[in-house]
């Protein structure tokens, strides 16, 4: 017997969410862009596996193409050519990740770049986005039929929109302002280790081993840091209020600009319930720094299951003409989970991969 996999109320809520995200950015003068899902080359990122396909070119050699793991590769070219502030809601594809409550190989990303802004400005913009979304969507969510019956007496009596969060505590908790903590302070609080003093791989490995964690010899600073973060910090910050972790250590290679203290970068991540919801940089604008990142990550990707092409000229888009700007990548499916109070992504996306694989013959 066929069982319907479709939650119509959720399909509607997603549609409203996308509409309201558009309304928010359009009202603030951002240009919505529509960039390709297929790219001949990507920005190398050592920890990501991608999907590969090929363009069949009759009577000519085939051209390898890759599904984008993020639209960043296009957005930075647009910014370099003077697009001004832009945003896009697009599907992204990541291979080799375990399908689970927070992961689907194909997912929806909201990416927005604000010119003449830094990562701190992006916090203000992201908070304004949340305020807008909660104002616009709370009545809809309050009226949704769902587990535990969200349609309460209170919501039917229709007080002003914001007051509807009363009785919908999962929405109340998402209201800005968000708590801000630096990665250094958070690590110090939850592990007792001071990252200021642990800038080389050897001393970090020794300190993390002393806490009783498993550490491999010769692993990178970033790997050891992530062990510590995943084991001790992430579970400790797993509260249901949004938390902005700022100033990530420079030992984690990313395309964010260097902070006033060169040990840290101008980057933040937004966490809710210990789950990463958004990542933000004050963008790196120095061509040499971008070229260095490309070389380092290309080398680190030697063992990738799915190798992909890298455009050696890509770093040339950066330089004097590249605007000072800040970009945010936000997982729309995870945001929808938070708004709807769902704990599994398969409940908020249509035809999630775990569902379609288990009912098909392609297991």
């Amino acid at each position, binding site marked *: 017997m066929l069982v319907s996999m479709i939650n119509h109320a959720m399909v509607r809520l997603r549609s409203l969410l996308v509409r309201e995200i558009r309304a928010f950015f359009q009202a603030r003068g951002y240009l919505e862009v529509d960039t390709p899902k297929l790219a001949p080359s990507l920005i190398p*990122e*050592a*920890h990501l596996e991608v999907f590969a396909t090929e363009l069949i070119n009759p009577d000519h050699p085939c051209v390898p193409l890759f599904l984008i793991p993020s639209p960043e590769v296009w957005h930075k070219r647009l910014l370099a050519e003077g697009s001004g502030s832009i945003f896009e809601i697009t599907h992204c594809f990541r291979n*080799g*990740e*375990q399908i*689970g409550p927070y*992961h689907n190989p194909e997912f929806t990303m909201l990416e927005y770049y604000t010119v003449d802004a830094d990562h701190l400005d992006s916090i203000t913009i992201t908070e304004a986005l949340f305020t807008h979304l909660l104002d616009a969507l709370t009545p809809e969510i309050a009226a949704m039929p769902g587990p535990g019956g969200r349609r309460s007496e209170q919501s039917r009596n229709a007080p002003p929109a914001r007051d509807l969060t009363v009785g919908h505590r999962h929405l109340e908790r998402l209201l800005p302002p968000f708590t801000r903590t630096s990665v250094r302070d958070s690590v110090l609080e939850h592990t007792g280790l001071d990252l200021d003093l642990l800038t080389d791989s050897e001393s970090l490995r020794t300190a993390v081993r002393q806490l009783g*964690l*498993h550490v*491999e010899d010769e*692993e990178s600073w*970033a*790997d050891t840091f*992530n*062990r510590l*973060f*995943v*084991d001790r910090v*992430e579970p400790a910050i797993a509260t249901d209020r949004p938390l902005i972790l700022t100033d990530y250590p420079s030992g*984690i*290679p*990313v395309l964010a600009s260097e902070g006033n203290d060169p040990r840290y970068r101008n980057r933040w*991540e937004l966490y809710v319930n210990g789950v*990463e919801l958004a*990542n933000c940089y004050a963008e790196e604008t120095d061509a040499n720094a971008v070229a260095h990142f490309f070389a380092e990550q290309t080398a680190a990707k030697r063992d990738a299951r799915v190798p992909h092409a890298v455009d050696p000229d890509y770093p040339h888009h950066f330089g004097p003409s590249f605007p000072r700007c800040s970009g945010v990548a936000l997982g729309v499916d995870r945001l929808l989970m938070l708004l709807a109070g769902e704990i599994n992504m398969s409940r908020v996306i249509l035809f999630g991969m775990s569902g379609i694989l288990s009912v098909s013959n392609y297991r």
Partner: protein
Amino acid sequence: MIRAGGIEKGMCLLIKGEPHAVAEREFVNPGKGSAFVRLKLKNLRTGLVLRETYKSNDNVETADVFDRDVQFLYSDGENFHCMDMESYEQFDVPMAGLEDKANYMKEGDTYTLVMWETTPIDIKIPLKMVFVVTEAAEGVKGDTVQGASKIVKVETGLEVKVPIFIKEGEKILVNTESGDYVERVNT
């Protein structure tokens, strides 16, 4: 050895020289970092809970844990003495940590030993077992306040709360997890 990314719930791993069963497994991908596996493990000897985090391409040692059917011979207060009735191999299972199982060990009965390499680390008790009532007071008439029940002793020394109609010499079925009386067994 197994890659940490391949670890499943229920697997047995050798961690810090001790056999552990995987009770929970969760995949975590930190932003801009490689994949990690967060585990909740139970030490199979001590029962202590351990939490560990591995990178999914770390190698983790597996513990060779398997079941073996044995006959329980007797206990000397320190060890349960058991024998594999096919190979006649004898095993001394230390009672430390297994004290709560002593009342369910009946001489001559068959039990399943959980072995880690050559060392027995646990004994599995059947969920329901039949015991002979060895000591029972006569039911006191009019004692209905406690649902007309009384405490009896069975051949292993275990005390069980039973209905007042149960007499010395009768057989009863007992739930070994809760220690509760299930029913009278007529044979």
